């Protein structure tokens, strides 16, 4: 046994990066073989070591499963799943709401026309998520660890979108009362509040076109000027796809802002072939 270990140690010395704690864990096991080579090439002691790791991670998963079984059981014992009265197509409730994971989209209905909020924006989101690994030009750094510094733009862009999705859900779930009117948490939701009669304004059609042209050209040009080398690392196609996706994402908070500060209903209102296209 001892001879065998010495031999392997001489043949293939592999430097493994590990913390002191991990070293304590394996120091009596003579870790010196690359584990990716396969189970058979390991000495019996090293086999023990890998099996032990397998057992420990399965153990952690087992405990996690046990913990959540317990949580779900207690939750189910003390809280009943909602069940209201029988469905009645002729009686529309005041506060009709989608299931919570779609409430973000329902929130968007307040700011956008249904075809944008319910179809176009989710489709762009879906396509954007699928395209994400191909847009990211950085193929090597930041794999396998939580690191903001290794890829600041990717992390902040994704986290912004992710946070927006959940903020919309929280607002839609907890801050909306009857008639989808905004309620603060300390206001009584059983009291029906009339929506304030605000006169919504639209941008003039020229203004709307000017806004979109200026906005998108700013979004295309600004990152190229501010972040040196950004355009170069991304390449032309990736750059334009990334920038336009970001521009569309940022339009959502911009529209919300315009709605609440300036009472803007539509930035651009078009009528093409008897069809209203409002943005």
């Amino acid at each position, binding site marked *: 046994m001892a001879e065998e270990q010495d031999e392997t140690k001489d043949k293939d010395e592999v430097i493994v990066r590990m913390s002191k704690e991990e070293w304590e864990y394996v120091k009596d096991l003579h870790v010196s073989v690359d584990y990716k080579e396969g189970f058979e090439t390991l000495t019996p002691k090293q086999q023990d070591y890998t099996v032990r790791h397998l057992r420990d991670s399965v153990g952690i998963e087992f405990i996690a499963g046990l913990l959540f079984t317990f949580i*779900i059981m207690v939750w189910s014992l003390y809280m009943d799943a909602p069940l209201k009265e029988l469905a009645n197509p002729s009686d529309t409730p005041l506060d009709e709401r989608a299931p919570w994971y779609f409430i973000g989209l329902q929130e968007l209905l307040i700011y956008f026309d249904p075809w944008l909020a319910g179809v176009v924006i989710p489709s762009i989101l879906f396509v954007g998520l699928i395209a994400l690994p191909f847009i990211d030009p950085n193929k090597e750094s930041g794999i396998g660890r939580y690191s903001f510094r290794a890829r600041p733009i990717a992390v902040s862009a994704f986290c912004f979108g992710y946070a927006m999705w959940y903020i919309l859900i929280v607002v839609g779930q907890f801050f909306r009362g009857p008639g989808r009117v905004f309620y603060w948490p300390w206001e009584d939701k059983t009291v029906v509040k009339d929506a304030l009669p605000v006169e919504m304004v639209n941008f003039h059609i020229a203004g709307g076109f000017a806004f979109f042209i200026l906005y998108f050209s700013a979004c295309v040009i600004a990152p190229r000027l501010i972040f040196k080398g950004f355009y170069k690392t991304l390449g032309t196609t990736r750059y334009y796809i990334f920038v336009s996706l970001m521009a569309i994402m940022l339009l959502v908070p911009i529209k919300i802002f315009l709605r609440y500060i300036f009472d803007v209903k539509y930035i651009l209102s078009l009528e093409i072939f008897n069809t209203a296209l409002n943005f």
Partner: protein
Amino acid sequence: MEEKKEKEQKGKSIKDLAKGTQVWKAIFGDLLFGEFKPFSPINSLMRGIAKIMQLHPYNMSVGGKRIIMYTFCLGGLSVFFFALLTCTGAFLMIYYNPDVNKAYANVEDFRYIVPFGVLIRNMHRWTAHLMVMFVSLHMLRVFLTGAYKPPRELNWIVGVILLVFTMLSSFTGYLLPWDQLAYWGVTIGCSMGENAPLLGAKGPFALLESGKDVNSILVGGAAVGQPTLLRFYLLHAIALPLGIAGLMGFHFWRIRRAGGVSGPL
């Protein structure tokens, strides 16, 4: 010398003390974190399962102990929730009819007649919420650790589809109790399809009339009704779970093919 011994005894943490007890040894001795025999039956069994299911790498490298602070078990728990939902869902299927006239009464029966009906229905509902939450958190984890980068791009795409399937699964299940909450929640959700450009009846440049547009494929008519309930039931109980299970198998297999979880394993 005695002082030193006393100090040593005081320095022992609660965990160390617990490890010495017979109860700890009985529960965790051979199974989990205690002393262990490499070729005991339980370890051989585990190795065999790992080999067949490919749920875990055959070999694990040094960082394995940190797994909990890296993946937070988010993906694994999603699978666990899926299994739990399948079991509770199968139980609920015994008593449930996808019929507008019976569905609501069936769900009420879970409350008052069926033994453990309330508990199982509650578990099904709350686990579904947890699953949607954990799948989306899992996506965040995968993004933050760069686990979508080559060679794992395809697995990211499969993951996005799994997220959508999870949401659709939850959404189709939402209608089944056939109460006011379900009816109007699904009406809101389905009205989105009605407004699709070109293909929806109310969307811009509508080509198709109401009742024949893309929305009616899902709803089975102009408004939510009996056809909708049956369609949603079949989607919820057969199509989507099978799709999720199949894609999940592919998802895990791809993880093994890529050399394991991206992180410090």
